[in-house]
């Protein structure tokens, strides 16, 4: 954590970087966000995961002070983002990378970063940001001459130029090629390591696994699960799959534990007691001089958990709808 204190309320009491309690947002009869609650601790990388229209961007825009909420309590760096009297101060402490590219085409990379640096009391040096986003060779090129991926990186540069305490990243790697994604991930890790709190929205599971300390899944405008990427939805408690190539001359029935053929000469063992099964299996292999080629232990993926959560919720809502219950799903809206 940098020496500069972060996220204190007006009495100087340390508070979470973001605090959301029972947040709701409606447009007329359409519900965009319903009873959402979560906290983001200082220095944490927190991911909001969900399908289109789940309410991720609306939630983030309320936290940024860009949109007014309909109900609930929200604090960003210790202040209410809807309080106009502190918005100018708040915006000196946050950085925002928007979902869609928004950079003036005629400025050069250096000019647009220099302009925005002037808005902040303690900006990062422009040249440092240009290097961080990997546009050193393009620093004096017009924005309109940059490729889509380079413009996206410049967008990230605009988000960090103010040296923010809290960085909002709304799908920051959408449109980037694989190396651009990895470079952006490295940049986010670097920022997190220096104490910057990051609130990230994304569709990419690998991005969540690579970056997030904690994740909340939004579906149907509400949080349906939250936790660490490795434990969300009981991921750390569920069954694992042990997979390997069957040794030559060995029938599946000869294995010390029941296994199922998985094609291509491989077998799979599904178990919730992976330590015992691995012990028996490797003991048998050592004793018999067998090689277990391609041995791997696969825990259920984050994507499986995510799909299970969202499809489960969708099915439950459909049942409620058919039963005429009170759980009528809200109309999904994009403001």
């Amino acid at each position, binding site marked *: 954590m940098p020496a*500069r*204190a972060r996220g*204190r309320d*007006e009495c*100087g009491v340390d508070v979470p970087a973001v605090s959301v309690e029972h947040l709701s947002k409606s447009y007329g009869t359409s519900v965009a966000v319903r009873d959402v609650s979560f906290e983001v601790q200082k220095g944490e990388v927190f991911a909001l995961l969900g399908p289109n229209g789940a309410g991720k961007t609306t939630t983030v825009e309320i936290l*940024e002070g*860009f949109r007014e909420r309909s109900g609930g309590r929200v604090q960003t760096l*210790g*202040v209410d983002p809807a309080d*106009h*009297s*502190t*918005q*100018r*101060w*708040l*915006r*000196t402490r*946050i950085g*925002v990378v*928007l979902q*869609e*590219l*928004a*950079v*003036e085409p*005629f*400025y050069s990379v250096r*000019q647009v970063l220099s*302009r*925005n640096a*002037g*808005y*902040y*009391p303690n900006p990062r040096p422009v040249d440092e940001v240009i290097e961080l986003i990997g546009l050193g060779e393009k620093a004096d090129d*017009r924005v309109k001459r940059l490729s889509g991926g380079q413009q996206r990186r410049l967008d990230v540069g*605009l988000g960090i130029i*103010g040296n923010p305490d809290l960085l909002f990243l709304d799908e920051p790697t959408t449109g980037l090629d694989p190396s651009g994604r990895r470079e952006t991930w490295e940049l986010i890790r670097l920022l997190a390591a220096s104490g910057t709190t990051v609130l990230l929205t994304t569709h990419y599971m690998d991005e969540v696994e690579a970056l997030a300390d904690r994740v909340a899944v939004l579906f149907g405008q509400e949080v349906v699960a939250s936790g660490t990427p490795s434990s969300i939805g009981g991921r750390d408690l569920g069954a694992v799959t042990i997979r390997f190539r069957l040794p030559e001359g060995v029938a599946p029935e000869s294995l010390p534990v029941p296994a199922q053929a998985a094609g291509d000469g491989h077998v799979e063992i599904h178990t919730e007691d992976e330590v015992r099964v691995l012990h028996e299996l490797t003991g048998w292999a050592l004793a018999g001089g067998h090689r277990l080629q391609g041995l791997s232990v696969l825990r259920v993926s984050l994507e499986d958990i995510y799909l299970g959560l969202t499809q489960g919720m969708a099915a439950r809502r459909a049942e409620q709808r058919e039963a005429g219950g009170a759980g009528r799903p809200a109309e999904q809206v994009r*403001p």
Partner: protein
Amino acid sequence: MSATDVPVKGSFRGASDLPLVARQVGFEQLAFWLNPIGAVLTIGFSVVFIVIFESTSRHTTVNYLPINLGQYYIPAFAAYGVMAACFNVLAISMVNRREMGLLKRLRLSPLPTWMLLAAIFVNWMIIALIQVVLLLAVGRFGYAVHGPRDVGMFLLVLLVGLLSFTAMGVGISTVVPNADAAGPVVSLVFFILVALSGLYFPVKPGSGLATFTGFFPIRHLILATVDSFNGISDTSTWHDILVVAIWGAVGVFVSLRRWEWSPKRG
């Protein structure tokens, strides 16, 4: 805890904000001049027309005008310069900024709203004034058309025109649904009304066309500018200024009611 950790309230910090406004105006100007084709077309259009009109008909007189056309076109095109920059180009620019997400990005920066809007408006007012000065210079040194003869009234008319057409430009930008529609919608309204309101040839007072265009602000700004430039202002000039100001107030009302930072993409 250091002083910087205490939330500072308010979006206006007094005189210390003025350098920030000036800096932002500087970047707005830079963006304008970095697009040389756009800049030349914006500023050069009225100069090209004034050269054509002054060269061909500056000694022509019409029986319902106490001045010759040479004395008419210079101030009329000065008014056009104000309207083109502050209404036509400003409106299209605002729609494009909104639809590209540029307004949203700046809204999320520490730049206060008032500072951003002030810089945008001052930028286009500077461009309008460059056109006015250029036209007056072309008139004086190219065609011996001297003015303004009533400097105070001329400056007042320009000021009311700048403010009112800026408000109208922002107002109409809020009703344009997307960037593709911005040019056709704004320019169609503007250039038709400009032509009908007597920019290219004075409209006879009391005619049906004069009555029709009298409902709109363009003819009134042209007449008030021509009158003040030639020192022939009277009570009708004040009436013209009032009509322009009322349209400006309508622009402010519409802007406040319909303003959006996010793209409409309609």
